[in-house]
């Protein structure tokens, strides 16, 4: 019986030790060396720098990569004659964090336009490994502000596999200025992604958008947008929602569940007094317009998308810009 008593004692002692060792190792040692975090960081730094340098009223596009490679802020800037920033980077950072980042560059009188990916509109609190890896690597401030349980969740989302790579890579030299430049050279001053000319047939062969059940669920993502809308009201920022550029499929027009979902979104924003620009169908384009995913437009198509967006938004935006000037 003694050996069993020892087993129980050791187990009870070992478990908390393993917990603490594992989670604190991740907290103190983990960094994302192989995934998107580094590019997210340099893109954000670059875009925020431009946004912060603008002292007058500006337009800021906030979303994930659909808009990074979608609406051209530079062309919007030229057309409306107002500084415009493409602050969109990566949809995987999820609704709350993307909106949190935007608050850092928004000032009174600014116009913020959000063409969120549907994944962010349907986001309902699921863990995002992209976001968690980024926070652990580059945004400890945000991480430390989270409550204890949220922090534990973030730490626990790092798999042993990723942690092992991180430990292995810590012995290597990463990310020289040359590497940084290799990314930034594809961006214009406004933060638009350039040089994406090629359409990859296989990479854009995607399934239809996955809908939630029930379709009219008020997700965490939608709640975050409503919260953000209130923040905008309190800070004199003008908010417009829009829809992401995405590959057109007949099913989006013909299938009842998609029609219901798009109607729900429009009604939801309307009920919350959030003005939307365009419709989901306005932002859908043929597959050959896309680069390497269902959201990423090739450069020529970005020009088309931007022209279309200007037509959809000019009456609203000109009025808003004049009001402020």
């Amino acid at each position, binding site marked *: *019986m003694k*050996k*069993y*008593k*020892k*087993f*129980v004692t*050791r*187990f009870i002692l*070992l*478990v908390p030790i*393993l*917990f603490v060792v*594992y*989670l604190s190792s991740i907290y103190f040692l983990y960094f994302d060396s192989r995934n998107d975090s580094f590019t997210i960081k340099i893109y954000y730094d670059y875009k925020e720098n431009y946004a912060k340098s603008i002292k007058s009223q500006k337009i800021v596009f906030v979303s994930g990569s659909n808009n990074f490679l979608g609406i051209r802020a530079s062309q919007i800037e030229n057309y409306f004659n107002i500084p415009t920033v493409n602050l969109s980077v990566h949809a995987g950072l999820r609704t709350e964090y993307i909106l949190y980042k935007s608050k850092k560059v928004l000032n009174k009188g600014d116009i913020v336009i959000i063409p969120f990916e549907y994944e962010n509109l349907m986001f309902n609190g699921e*863990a995002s490994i992209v976001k968690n890896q980024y926070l652990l690597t580059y945004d400890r401030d945000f991480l430390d502000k989270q409550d204890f349980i949220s922090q*534990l*969740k973030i730490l*626990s*989302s790092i798999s*042993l596999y990723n942690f092992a790579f991180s430990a292995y890579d810590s012995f290597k030299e990463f990310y020289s200025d040359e590497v940084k430049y290799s990314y930034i050279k594809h961006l214009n001053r406004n933060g638009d992604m350039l040089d994406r000319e090629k359409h990859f047939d*296989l*990479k854009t*062969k*995607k*399934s*239809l*958008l*996955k*809908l939630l*059940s029930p379709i009219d669920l008020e997700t965490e993502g939608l709640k975050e947008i409503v919260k953000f809308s209130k923040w905008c009201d309190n800070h004199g920022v003008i908010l417009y929602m829009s829809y992401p550029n995405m590959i057109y499929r007949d*099913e989006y027009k013909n*299938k009842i*569940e*998609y029609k219901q979902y798009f109607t729900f979104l429009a009604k939801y924003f309307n009920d919350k007094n959030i003005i939307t620009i365009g419709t989901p169908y306005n932002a859908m384009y043929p597959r050959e317009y896309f680069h390497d995913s269902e959201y990423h437009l090739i450069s020529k198509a970005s020009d088309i998308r931007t022209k279309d967006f200007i037509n959809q938004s000019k009456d609203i935006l000109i009025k808003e810009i004049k009001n402020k000037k």
Partner: protein
Amino acid sequence: MLFNSYEFIFIFLPISFFIYFYLNHKKLIIIAKIWLIIASLFFYSWWNIIYLPLILISIIFNYKITQLIIEYNDKNYLSKQNLLQIGLLFNIGLLVYFKYMDFFIENINTVFSSDIGLLYLALPLAISFFTLQQIAFLIDSYEGLVKERNFLDYMVFVTFFPQLIAGPIVHHKEMMPQFENIRNKVVNYKNISIGLFIFSIGLFKKSVIADRFAVWATNGFDTSTLTLNMLEGWVTSLSYTFQLYFDFSGYTDMAIGIALLFNIRLPINFNSPYKSLNIQDFWRRWHITLSRFLKDYVYIPFGGNRKGKFTTYQNLMATFMIAGIWHGAGWTFIFWGFLHGLAIAIHKAWSQLGFKIWSWLAWIITFNFINIAWVFFRAKEWDDAIRVLHSMFFGQIELSYKFLEVVPKLDILRDYGVTFGAGFSNIGGNKEIMFTIPIIFILVLLIKNSNQLIDNFVPTKTITFLISIIFSYSVISFLTIHSEFLYFNF
């Protein structure tokens, strides 16, 4: 309260355990029993207290009826058989009302084009399990196999929290002697060690394995807009096949482990079912306590195999269709039961003819039949089942374009109808799926199952270290993924 939750593992379980043994240590045996009942009812009410009265009514009614049966004498107005019939009617009625009423109404509306409103009753947690357990007790009492005269003991028997929600379905005669045994009233480190060991394995099965497969199964089954290619179809069905096994056997391992902490041995419920070489073998290894119930209280009372071949097959079909509908109110469940009944009948006929086939072929046929039948069991609608099955057999063979990037020569496969595109990416990560499924096949087919691990358990330092890692990693895993057990829905 879920077994895979912090409140259960770190608060409820330690408190229940320590107070139970403290009271027993102080010779407060009855109070310890009351404590166990209170803890179990609290555990049950944690989800939704609204169903607490229902389980209490069910327990009180069944206890009263069995007392009348046990105390029966000739002066009674109702016969012993009448009392049993009333008891069965009550239990089956309760199940029908809460579980099947809307299903019946929907079918009546379809057949007669009527417009009877649905009741939209939420399924009371564990009703399928505690009802079966009490039906078994009622019949055993009628047949004189058990004589329970103590209400507290009966409460403990029905509500004992490790097995209350999703089994194993236990018999009075295998449980109550253990609760009565005075040696089981003291802390037993051997049982605690084995309990922690098997609980950790169950937790790992659920949190690390089943929940991983759950994502892929859900992506494949529940996205009606998704056109699956052939590989995605197979990944979807296999994911559910493994999810269900690791989820339910994980739950059972945890239940067995928790019960062992209280010095109670629950019956085993799984014995490597996917190693089965025929469908009869499968039902000896899968949800063993349900199979036992169906055999003893449905198949044999129907006549079993005593009334000729045709009636035997009829009884088998009926038993399995009841098994199907017990799992859920839907035609897909009934059809799943029908398929299994048919397979058992075919297997019986085949065996009687004396045919034999190679073991490996027998395994392939059995496993694939089980896998395909689970498609009906899992699908929420007929259309989803047909969609997944269609993709498994007639879907486009599409490999990930990344194969082509690595081995350009694979382009030759296009001549054989293979296309290159998303691979499994509609379901989950290509690499992850390609590695996980073969590893799980190896685990399921070659590694010792939980029962064998218990039998061979030795509390060495290495085992302590390994099991502590397994436990800690599982607990960390369910921080990000939090899911209920599949059998809570049945």
